[in-house]
């Protein structure tokens, strides 16, 4: 591919690509994101290729491995264009039928389309599925339309037109003004206005400047940045280039977790293609703008998501944060002015420049504009990535988009903001999701993890879980975080194990205040949040653990016992056979009893007890009823005797 040397040449190539595309030709798009690959998407793609070849249809049908459209719950996902027919949970065995019926005969396979579990209504097209049509998918919707490894596909949907506009029609000041008008706030956690960061770097006197994509997405349960980088890497590159042009940087970095091999692969391919086409390198598109990008893989350290730690890691050292007397946009990577933004923040930039600030501002609330992608996970029916306009309520997200809680369980809390965030109870469900509202409620937007918890989730254990995570991930540079978080974890662990004492809550509060106040970086400053927010809304659970040695959610192992109800047990041997520690005694006609001394509380008996008997239950805060006398244990089949 020859380099593109002018904006006219870019449009010429775009038109060539478009003229070669027959919009009526069927195209089978198969999600090849990590989530769908884990459910077997690679086999489905292979099956389509094989079947198409077998039937000699290569010239009539296109197939594409695309990025993640978000509906991970029903993967692997296949969308067939131009009709946009969406098939869910497709298996390789379904492929011949799809080709024979849908591609050749234009018939929809009813068994593979979406069926709403509550209304029983089916939906053939992606846009008709409630999971999708309650969202506002400005950024993520293109993922399923393009082959994530093809720059031609990106150009076909108008790619790099924002870059062209910026380079030839706008001065850096004008770009900055446009982004400023949107008050685009950082999508990675802090919510700091991107344009202010850019302006600081732009005005810094040093001639050498850098731009960085922060793709060190470490929050457990959050994967929206990965989906964007895997699915539409050129969009991120385009945003980064516009940022570089605005502040006057000639070099950029993409810092991506090594745990995301597909994202690393796709972004490397994208960079190579962009270099070949002349979107990267010297005199980009014939302008005077020079810019190059390198990929740096993170080596597994949560703290490296913090901007200064990330820059230290980029310099080839252990990723420990630095004090921020001078912000990194003035003195960052190698002490030069550096703008670091999150993947999703960069992804918004081309959209803003293409459509204008007014368009962007039509989405969202007064102080939080645009959309935000959340990864909606945990105890939720529709696990996946959802892009919603700022200001949507938690209730709408969880029930309208997410389809509610599985198994008719009760909603208990939703955790947002990752380990730095907090848990919000059902009384906060009508809270509008935006930067300031979430912070005021004691949680935060964070990078966009949204973990739904039901009645079986213990909130004390959730706090312990996050403190355990943070204690492990604390880099150890400053004392309050290294030692304080460890002490908080120790006390919380004691509480969940039934060794809580009066005064523990107050001690935790005091520790939390100190850690918040004097830690070096955001990891420590926010580390007490999981505890403080759960205490604020679920204080009674803490008290039950400490005073009554009871776990109300029946989760904490040391505080629960398993018990077989002799009235319900039908001596079916299921739990007896499966118990890994031989704690269940009984026989074919002998009611089963759990030996409490041998029980390891692995939950296997409860898992395997047939639902029609429902004989195993968990109890907490009360003694286990004594075993029934030996002579009453025999049951006669047919009529149960006691």
């Amino acid at each position, binding site marked *: 591919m020859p380099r593109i040397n002018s904006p006219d040449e870019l449009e010429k190539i775009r038109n060539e690509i478009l003229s070669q595309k027959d919009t009526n030709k069927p195209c089978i798009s198969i999600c090849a994101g990590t*989530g769908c690959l884990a459910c077997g998407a690679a086999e489905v793609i292979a099956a389509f290729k094989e079947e198409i070849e077998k039937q000699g249809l290569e010239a009539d049908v296109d197939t594409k491995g695309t990025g993640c459209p978000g509906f991970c719950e029903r993967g692997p996902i296949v969308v067939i264009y131009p009709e946009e027919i969406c098939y869910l949970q497709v298996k390789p065995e379904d492929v011949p039928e799809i080709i024979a019926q849908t591609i050749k005969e234009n018939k929809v396979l009813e068994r593979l389309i979406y069926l709403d579990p509550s209304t029983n209504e089916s939906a053939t097209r992606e846009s008709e599925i409630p999971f999708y049509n309650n969202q506002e998918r400005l950024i993520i919707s293109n993922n399923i339309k393009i082959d994530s490894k093809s720059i031609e596909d990106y150009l076909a949907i108008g790619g790099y037109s924002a870059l062209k506009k910026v380079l030839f029609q706008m001065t850096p000041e004008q770009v900055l003004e446009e982004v400023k008008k949107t008050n685009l706030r950082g999508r990675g956690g802090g919510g700091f206005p991107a344009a202010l960061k850019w302006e600081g770097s732009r005005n810094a006197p040093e001639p050498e400047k850098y731009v960085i994509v922060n793709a060190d997405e470490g929050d457990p349960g959050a994967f929206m940045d990965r989906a964007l980088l895997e699915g539409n890497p050129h969009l991120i590159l385009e945003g980064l280039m516009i940022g570089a042009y605005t502040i006057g940087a000639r070099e950029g970095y993409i810092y991506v977790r090594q745990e995301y091999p597909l994202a690393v692969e796709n972004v490397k391919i994208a960079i190579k293609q962009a270099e070949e086409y002349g979107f990267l390198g010297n005199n980009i598109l014939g302008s005077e703008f020079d810019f190059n990008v390198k990929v740096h893989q993170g080596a597994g350290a949560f703290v490296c998501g913090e901007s200064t730690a990330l820059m230290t890691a980029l310099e080839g050292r252990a990723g420990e944060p630095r004090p921020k007397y001078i912000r990194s946009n003035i003195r960052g990577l190698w002490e030069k002015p550096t703008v670091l933004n999150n993947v999703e923040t960069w992804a918004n930039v081309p959209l803003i420049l293409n459509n204008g600030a007014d368009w962007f501002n039509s989405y969202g609330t007064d102080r939080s504009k645009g959309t935000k992608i959340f990864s909606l*996970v945990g105890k939720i029916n529709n696990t996946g990535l959802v892009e919603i306009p700022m200001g949507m309520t938690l209730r709408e997200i969880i029930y309208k988009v997410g389809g509610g809680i599985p198994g008719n369980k009760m909603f208990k809390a939703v955790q947002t903001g990752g380990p730095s965030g907090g848990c919000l109870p059902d009384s906060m469900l009508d809270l509008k999701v935006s930067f300031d509202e979430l912070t005021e409620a004691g949680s935060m937007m964070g990078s966009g993890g949204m973990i739904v918890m039901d009645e079986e989730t213990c909130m004390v254990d959730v706090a312990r879980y996050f403190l355990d995570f943070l204690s492990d991930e604390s880099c150890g540079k400053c004392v309050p975080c290294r030692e304080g978080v460890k002490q908080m974890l120790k006390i919380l662990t004691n509480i969940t194990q039934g060794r809580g004492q009066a005064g523990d809550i107050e001690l935790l509060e005091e520790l939390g205040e100190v850690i918040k106040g004097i830690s070096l970086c955001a990891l420590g400053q926010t580390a007490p949040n999981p505890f403080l927010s759960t205490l604020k809304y679920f204080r009674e659970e803490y008290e039950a653990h400490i005073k009554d040695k009871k776990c109300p959610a029946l989760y904490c192992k040391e505080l629960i016992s398993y018990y077989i109800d002799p009235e319900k047990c039908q001596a079916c041997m299921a739990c007896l056979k499966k118990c890994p520690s031989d704690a269940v005694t009984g026989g074919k006609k002998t009611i089963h009893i759990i030996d409490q001394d041998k029980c*390891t509380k692995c939950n296997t008996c409860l898992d395997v007890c047939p639902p029609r008997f429902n004989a195993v239950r968990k109890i907490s805060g009360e003694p286990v009823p004594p075993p029934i006398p030996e002579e009453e244990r025999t049951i006669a089949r047919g009529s149960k005797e006691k």
Partner: protein
Amino acid sequence: MDITRVDQIIDKHNCETNSLIQVLLEVQSEKHWLSRQALERISERLDVPLSRIQHIASFYKAFSLVPKGRHEIHICMGTACHVRGAQNVLSAVEDLTGIKPGETDLDLKFSLETVNCLGCCALGPVMDVNGQIHGNLAPADTEEALKKYE
């Protein structure tokens, strides 16, 4: 460990000091651990003190300073998997393999690690063995899942 291969990796990165972490990552991904021999070579050729390399190799989770088993088990302890019972899956795998996270058994068959999110939360709880995902696992399923690894 094959030092010529380590040299090739170093050459690929033009002996640049800044590329230290990238070099270590490549050696780790090929050899599954970082031997002292390899670290000394990297130290010498990138002109970085061995103490600093040790600091980095022990700071980041991706690196191992001891050999790994033939099969690497990663159990996801991300929040979504946690609320769906990952702790019980981990306990079951610990019982089956006789090792704790961070350990390798004496036959060098399994290494066990916990990870903080594999990003396929719809399938949680999730176990990854040699890159193959086992999803929606109950503790009782783990024995069957690990059987096929020799």
